[in-house]
């Protein structure tokens, strides 16, 4: 038996002859939206945690886009967005002077103290 398969040589095939090295007719910059950072609270009682970033024209749109992009599978119950330019970060070159002094202060950890095994609830 001969079986004929219907193939759709339209829509996804043929047609358009343009494309590739299309001359630019405008500069994209004039319509570009600012960048936002997205923070998600995954469930009630937990901190908001950085999830990623996205582009949006304003805060309301950033929240709507964050909802669409980052919480499609019940990843969160609350969203924060902040425009990326308002985030200030520490410099990685300062990491030694900032964080290393804590290394020799092991007495700040409970395990530093040697106590008898008999002691309970401590």
């Amino acid at each position, binding site marked *: 038996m001969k079986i004929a398969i219907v193939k759709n040589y339209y829509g996804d095939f043929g047609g358009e002859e343009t494309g590739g090295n299309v001359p630019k*007719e405008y500069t994209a910059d004039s319509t570009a939206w600012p960048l936002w950072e997205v923070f998600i609270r995954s469930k009630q009682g937990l901190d908001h945690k950085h999830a990623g*970033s996205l582009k949006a024209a304003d805060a309301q749109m950033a929240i709507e886009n964050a909802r669409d992009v980052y919480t499609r599978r019940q990843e969160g119950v609350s969203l924060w967005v902040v425009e990326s330019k308002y985030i200030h970060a520490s410099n990685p070159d300062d990491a030694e002077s900032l964080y290393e002094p804590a290394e020799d202060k092991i007495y700040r950890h409970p395990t530093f103290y040697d106590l008898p095994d008999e002691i309970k609830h401590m």
Partner: protein
Amino acid sequence: MQLHDLEKKFQEKIDKEIKIEPKDWMPEAYRKTNVRQISQHAHSEIVGMLPEGNWISRAPSLKRKAILIAKVQDEAGHGLYLYSAAETLGTSREQMIDDLHSGKAKYSSIFNYPTLTWADMGAVGWLVDGAAILNQVMLCRTSYGPYARAMVRICKEESFHQRQGFESLLVLSRGTPEQKAMCQDAINRWWWPSLMMFGPKDSESTNSDQSMKWKIKRKTNDELRQSFVNMAVEQVKLLGMTLPDPDLKWNEATKNYDFGEINWEEFWAVVKGNGPCNKQRLAARNKAHKEGAWVREAALAYAAKKAAREKAA
């Protein structure tokens, strides 16, 4: 610090499996390789929506339509995660999009093949997404932090893409003689292009050595391709279909399936822009971007107006 000292310290971090973060010092070539690879990856997600978007209005049932819409929406999100990761390396979204639209930047060649029947949606999910997942799982451990984090998020979502594809083929494989024939035909057309997705042979690949040393990649093209073949050979049996390669044979010595030679001439032709749909894909992207310009402008104007009103109140 001298440049070679910085490079030495950088390599030590990589060797110790310490992730590289955006503000850390990195060799210019490391930055460039990551920008190229991450943006290419982002473009692939975006262009990958085109052949699938074509089938949303032609899906055979409401269930399949809903699944397809969800999948296409995921791809848009994956593109966004990756563009954001690339942006942390100092390139801009606008620059990347311009490079895609001008044809300067590449995207995965697989999307330059047409989807001719509904069975192609299943084959794309099973084979194309299956091949992509092998690469993506490896990239969850890539050395650049933002790229690795984007990949973790992507992998969580991608598994549904492959499973829905296989299930869709499974339904066809148990259907009418026409549906069975469609299923086999789609597998025949997508098998070889899927193998090509892993890129040139290790012996021909120019960027591989350095990328392995920097742990951007952790497995070679040939290693990934071989694992894909080994998995697919077993999975196709469950469909009661065959893979279109007479040279497929279990090799007891290597514990792998040997497979036939890929048509590298075709591979390079498609990479260079001469695949069946290269022109059409770029035309569709350019058109969408151009025709969407007023939406981006209107959103900005609306945001500015709202901000001014809030200030006045």
